[in-house]
């Protein structure tokens, strides 16, 4: 949308008299003010698993996020982290937060009526124009997928929701996926529910049984790498939602870059066409906060 508007403003540039050229005054909507944090009241908190909670944020002043997009979420005194949107609508946005470190631990201590500060939504979204979908999630990677599944089901599309975790208590959104009309398959590493092992082990099975024309995946990078390989082998396009260390979240700092093509996960992603990712260091290298390359 932004591109379109910028294109429009570029037409002004053709004005023969540079002094009359209104280019810089025209697009006041595109100012740095969209990178200001907005307060978001926590309307409701649900416990999804021992390590994961969902926060329903009252966010009337934000644009409606699309499935795959994320927010930068700031808790004063604790830090600011990127979080995918796991549902949105009716003036409310849900984020689903796994306790993985100091910032997310502080976020977990918040109670209903508390406040988080957010900016966004940022980034690219899942393209949902195919007919039959396979959604493969691992851990909190289920968050953007479950939002996608809602949009798919509203459009009357079919799909399979396959998720994996270490233990059955950590499987996310299986009820919600069923409610959206998706068929649900699970894998647990300790065998407490469903297939014992990884979700990628059972993928070949339903790739044989169903005909998918699109695969969406989000979760640990090694898992996504396998999903991408398996999908492409059968000629099914795969959309991958990626994570990289983010400082700005809006495309200016460069910390989330993928080598060697120079794609930024925060603005060119986080959702990428899998074929493009094969031309990058996806699955092999990422960067730490200093920009140093480290193994995935």
């Amino acid at each position, binding site marked *: 949308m932004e591109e379109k508007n910028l294109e429009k403003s570029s037409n002004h*540039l053709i004005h023969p008299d540079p002094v009359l050229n209104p280019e810089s005054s025209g697009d006041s909507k595109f100012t*740095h003010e969209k*990178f200001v*944090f907005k307060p978001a009241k926590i309307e409701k908190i649900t416990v999804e698993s021992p390590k994961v909670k969902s926060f329903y944020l009252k966010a009337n002043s934000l644009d409606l996020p699309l499935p795959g997009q994320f927010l930068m979420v700031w808790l004063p005194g604790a830090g600011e982290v990127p979080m995918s949107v796991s549902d949105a609508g009716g003036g409310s946005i849900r984020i689903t937060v796994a306790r993985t470190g100091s910032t997310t631990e502080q976020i977990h201590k918040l109670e209903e009526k508390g406040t988080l500060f957010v*900016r966004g939504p940022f980034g690219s979204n899942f393209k949902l124009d195919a007919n039959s979908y396979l959604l493969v999630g691992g851990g909190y990677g289920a968050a953007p997928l479950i939002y996608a599944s809602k949009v798919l089901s509203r459009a009357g599309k079919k799909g399979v929701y396959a998720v994996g975790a270490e233990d059955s208590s950590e499987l996310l959104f299986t009820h919600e996926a069923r409610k959206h009309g998706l068929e649900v398959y699970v894998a647990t590493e300790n065998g407490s529910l469903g297939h014992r092992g990884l979700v990628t082990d059972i993928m070949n099975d339903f790739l044989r049984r169903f005909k998918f024309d699109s695969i969406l995946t989000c979760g640990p990078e090694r898992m996504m790498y396998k999903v991408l390989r398996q999908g492409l082998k059968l000629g099914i396009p795969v959309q991958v939602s990626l994570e990289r260390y983010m400082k700005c979240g809006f495309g200016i700092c460069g910390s989330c870059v993928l*080598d060697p093509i120079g794609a930024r996960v925060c603005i060119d992603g986080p959702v990428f066409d899998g074929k493009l990712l094969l031309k990058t260091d996806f699955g092999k290298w990422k960067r730490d906060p*200093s*920009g140093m390359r480290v193994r995935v």
Partner: protein
Amino acid sequence: MPKLTVKIGSLKFSNPTELASGILCNGALLRRTATEGGAGAVVTKSLTNERREGYPNPTIVGVRAGLINAIGLSNPGYAEFLRHELPLAREGKVCVMVSVAGSDVGEFLRISSAAEDSGADGVELNLSCPHVKKRGLEMGSDPELVHEVVKEVKGALKIPVHAKFGLTDRLTDAALKAEGAGADAIVAINTIKATAIDIHARKPVLSNIYGGLSGPAIHSIAVRCVYELYEILSIPLIGSGGVEDWQTAVEFLLAGARAVQIGSAVAIKELNVFNKVARGIERYLDTCGFKSVEEIVGCAHG
């Protein structure tokens, strides 16, 4: 676009737009800024001896007319950057300036020499970061120290050396000292020390509390600095601060800059901002009957 080519001493920029230091700061993005964005030159993030993670998030926030950032000079250390990122940046086929943020003469010297050995087209000495102690602004406001740093680095390097200054009371003194010590160009200005407080959280937004203000908010101050420096210096100037479109760029050129850096505008106008500014400058030259950028440099002076 030969009429857009500018010479900054012995360096040739294919157009007067240069990516500012610290923006889009890894190698592949520097290349993209040149090939897709159309930048006439690029500057790397400021490098230090050791790897630095920088400050914790939030590190950048939007304000009414720009951004405030306290990234904290995060970088993987100069050796890693020069090994991995510089070669990618050089694929962009425009001048690549390596920015150096030393804390003493020795650090400036070591990193600058390594940059030359690794194929940098020039170095930009960051004498002006407003939010990291012992680096930057404290140096740039000490003209004697500026003289020493520039002289030592110039003495050891064959490639051009640019000195980047921030807003200090001693800007003109410091810039004169840099020129006297052999600097090939002056970049003015870096961000201006600033704070953003969230009125709902009732807390400073940046984890470091203080950061550097950039964008439209500092443009007129930066134009003033360039105008003043043009009056007293004879080496080329590069304007930095709030360039968002060709008009703000042309203003810098008229004040005396031979090139402009673009940083914060990338966040709202994307990579293509360089192309747009360059094309706008070209049209301005055509419409007003000028044959080259050089003809309008410093035109606003009597």
